[in-house]
């Protein structure tokens, strides 16, 4: 792809810990991507609206509060509802291993747990885009 990859980094829910989201936003920028950062306390509806209007290639969700089993699938469902099938959805945060399979089935392509190098995430994004 010649154009920069566009990524929406969003923090759904009420969790205010944005250290990880900010570090990732910077790492993706330094990898040449255009990162749309929407700040704290986003509802799944707002995230999806932003993803549509910004026509992003990737939606990255970051959450540490434990509400991922509700909020992540909700984002995936709403995207599906709007017919958006060309966006890669990834997630990260404090997410127990046993939840990962369920999240993947709900449409989150990959979950990055604490300690994942940003380089690995960048690699994953580049190799798994849903459109060219």
């Amino acid at each position, binding site marked *: 792809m010649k154009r920069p990859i566009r990524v929406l980094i969003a923090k759904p*829910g*009420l*969790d*205010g*810990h*944005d*250290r990880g989201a*900010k*570090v990732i*936003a*910077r*790492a993706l920028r330094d990898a040449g991507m255009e990162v749309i*950062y929407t*700040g*704290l*306390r986003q*509802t799944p509806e707002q995230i999806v609206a932003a993803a549509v209007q910004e026509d992003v290639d990737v939606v990255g969700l970051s959450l540490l*509060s*434990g*509400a991922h*089993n*509700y*909020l992540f699938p*909700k984002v995936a469902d709403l995207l599906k509802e709007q017919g958006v099938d060309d966006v890669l959805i990834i997630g990260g945060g*404090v997410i*127990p*291993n*046993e939840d990962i399979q369920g999240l993947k089935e709900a449409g989150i392509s990959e979950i990055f*747990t*604490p*300690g994942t*190098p*940003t*380089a690995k995430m960048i690699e994953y994004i580049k190799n798994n885009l849903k459109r060219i």
Partner: protein
Amino acid sequence: MFDKEKLSHIKEVRQKWEDGVLAKTLNKAPESKEEFKSVSGALVNRLYTPEDVENIDYESEIGYPGQYPFTRGYQPTMYRGRPWTMRMYAGFATAEESNERYKYLVSQGSTGLSVAFDLPTQIGYDSDHSLAQGEVGKVGVAIDSLRDMEILFDGIPLDKVSTSMTINAPAAVLLAMYIAVAEKQGVSPDKLRGTIQNDILKEYIARGTYIFPTEPSMRLITNIFEYCSKHVPKWNTISISGYHIREAGSTAAQEVGFTLADGIAYVEAAIKAGLDVDTFAPRLSFFFNSHNDLFEEVAKFRAARRLWAKIMKNRFKAKDEKSMMLKFHTQTAGCTLTAQQPDNNIIRVAMQALAAVLGGTQSLHTNSRDEALALPTTDSVTIALRTQQIIANETGVANTVDPLAGSYFIEAKTKEIEVKAMEYITKIDELGGAARAIDLGYIQKEISDSAYQYQMEIESLERIVVGVNKYQVEEDAPKGLLRVDPIVAEMQKEKINEVKAKRNNLAVEEKLDLLKKACEGTENVMPFILDAVKEYASLGEICGVMREVFGEYEQAVLI
């Protein structure tokens, strides 16, 4: 600390040593790195000698514990009189379940309670609010009304325990609920001991559970200062927190600089509101992080104490020495816990706890090994508590006051952190104070720069994290993590509906209306909140009224 003659001799010998013994060794076996750096990225020398402390005057800069400038501790006998308070932060799911955990902790020797609230509570939403979906009971206990608070402290005598509540934007409401529960137990407010975090500035900076804009938030805080100085005199009205600033990625010096800058803003706000500095300053308390770098952390705690004492004495002209004492709670650094090989976290927590004790903390929370994965299980919490008990009872580090004082290294680093922190404070003053610096995104940007650098150092293997970028193993997914049943949200919703059905709704409306008028005016809102709480007005209703009058904060982000 040494006279000139002695120093020049020391210098001479040092140069000889460098040219002789040292040079020889370096020739044969060079050091493993060109530079050695602390966790915060500060340069660490090969050796510290009297030369490094030549400008530090013992009496005025180090002195004696329990007196200005309090470098060696806020109290003259420290842990010889009484060990630090072992205060384990806990709370999850419903008030019923959390109440059980508190009773367990007390039975195991925990000497103070520390309440964790769930995010909807921290942001002033009831469990049935649409934004609360998925979050109820997740990171702490859900409190919707006085009813939940009654359950939370059921069977716990509030005149006997000291309770710390991690609550900020709606701190006034939760404090009012606590006072109301105490009254029902027959305990008058003047007997209550504990702390509310009540530190909104660091919410804007790092933690994110803000509600109202800066101005009304500062008013709520000074209202609490004033109310408590009259009615709840033993209550620590604020816990000015560097913990979350450090968690967000700051360095040790930034943690001290930004936290004390916040402290300065609160003191200024209270003085502006007409309070005399010595009436509220003794009730200010602090909350710091204890990170991995043992000596840097010890130096940090000592530097914070000294710098605050100087600020209170010189800048705010406090007269009461109690106003100059920096008392603090410590929590080990959550951000250092790894999801990989979680048992390793026990060792990390032990070292960090040791640093806090060597640094003279007043109370301590030790993290549990599984917190990078989920909320801690009872087993994990027990190990974390035992860690403190082992330090207190078996290691002997609590036998003497400020045992590391006089170490050339520690004293030099204490000075270095104090100077760097003061530079940040000066910069913030130039920008117009902490609130303005936050509004401009300055503090957030400094922190996220540090966080990014730290992450890049890990990825380039410049910094080793055991089990994460070195010594990795294949491991099975950990079993037996604590899970909050989604049914909790339903139970909370039912409970709040029941409360609303049973209470006197006319009285609630009336009290909320009075609260609204108070918010619009300039009176102290505390009594109005207390009245509303007693009628079982919900947290969401009370914060809703305040949202209506005050508006909501908009986050400043610079990445």
